């Protein structure tokens, strides 16, 4: 029996079957191709996704490294900031110390200046035993060192029942010539009686025509006279520290210089210096 005779192998059926097989195969391969295409596309997507993830991973690694670097930098910045603060503090301390030294240097300059004034004044005051020269030195001290424009030197004169004060040297204040002041009368007499300096505010005293300063000249326990300042030089508006030191020096040394010169004048002649020392 042939296939043609077999009902199960009917040619038409065979043809149909072949066609179906062809169709199936075609469909199968087409779907296979489509699936392959789809797989390839998905593979491409995955590849791209992997590439992107790798790139992202690299970025993250870099960022991590960068974060570490930033952390290091921040630590360094903090250290530098602390160092800067420390240096700043050191600089501030040094500036303070420098200012302190500058102030001390200025203070020493002032003191040296005062000492120079006092040394020169004292030296000159005791450099002569001539009464007129002693008065001239006092005058120079008052004009050149203190800045007095008008002044008078009063000396004590014994007079019953109380001593009086009379001017023996007048500088630019002729109105004082011939004046006699009672002991303990007014600022001049009181300065002599109390042996305490009288110092007024220059502007007020000058405005009222009163003495600005009355400096008693003290020898031993007694006041032998008073130096009276009536007016200061135009550029001198007030007394300064050195003036008060000079007043002390005048109070203590001018009297001794005047008394010494007076005693020598009473001797009548000036002894030979070397011989007089040899007899000591």
């Amino acid at each position, binding site marked *: 029996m042939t296939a043609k005779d077999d009902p199960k192998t009917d040619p038409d059926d065979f043809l149909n079957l072949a066609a179906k097989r062809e169709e199936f195969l075609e469909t199968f391969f087409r779907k296979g191709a489509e699936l392959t295409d789809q797989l390839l596309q998905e593979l491409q997507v995955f590849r791209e996704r992997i590439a992107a993830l790798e790139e992202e991973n690299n970025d993250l690694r870099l960022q991590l490294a960068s974060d570490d670097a930033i952390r290091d930098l921040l630590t360094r910045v903090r250290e530098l900031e602390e160092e800067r603060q420390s240096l700043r503090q050191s600089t501030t301390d040094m500036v303070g110390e420098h200012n302190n030294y500058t102030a001390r240097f200025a203070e020493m300059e002032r003191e040296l200046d005062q000492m120079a004034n006092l040394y*020169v004044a004292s030296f000159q005051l005791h450099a002569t035993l001539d009464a007129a020269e002693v008065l001239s030195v006092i005058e120079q001290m008052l004009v*050149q060192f203190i800045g007095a424009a008008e002044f008078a030197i009063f000396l004590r004169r014994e007079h019953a029942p109380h001593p009086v004060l009379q001017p023996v040297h007048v500088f630019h204040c002729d109105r004082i010539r011939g004046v006699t002041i009672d002991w303990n009368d007014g600022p001049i007499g009181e300065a002599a009686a109390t042996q305490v300096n009288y110092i007024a505010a220059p502007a007020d005293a000058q405005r009222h025509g009163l003495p600005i300063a009355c400096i008693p000249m003290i020898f031993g326990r007694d006041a032998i006279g008073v130096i009276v300042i009536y007016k200061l030089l135009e550029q001198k508006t007030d007394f300064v520290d050195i003036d008060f030191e000079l007043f002390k020096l005048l109070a203590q040394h001018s009297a001794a210089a005047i008394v010494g010169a007076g005693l020598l004048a009473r001797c009548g002649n000036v002894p030979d210096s070397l011989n007089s020392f040899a007899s000591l």
Partner: protein
Amino acid sequence: MAQYTCLVVEDSPMMRQLIVFALGRIRHLDVVEADDGVDGLKKLSAGKFDLVITDINMPIMDGLKLVKRIRTDAVHRDVPIMIITTEGAAEDRQRALQLGANAYITKPIQAPQVISKVKELLNIP
């Protein structure tokens, strides 16, 4: 060794001594002293000076006449001159500066002020 020489013309021995004392604190500065303007001119003609400090009120020849003379002197006409005086009026200062003084300081003096001005006139740092 002195680099500069200064002539101090002042009739008051006290003030002269004080000025010399102050100038002694400037290194390399020699000081020559004169009693008045005429003495100052004599000392000037006998030497070479870098600075003259003078008072105004002095016997025989005052400081302003001395300034005038120095400004016409062939050798010292360019020497800086500093006035140290009791004359504090503005017109006195103006007159001295017009005559050729370079600096004007009034008494009573303060040593730091004098030292500073001398250094300035001599260009000493």
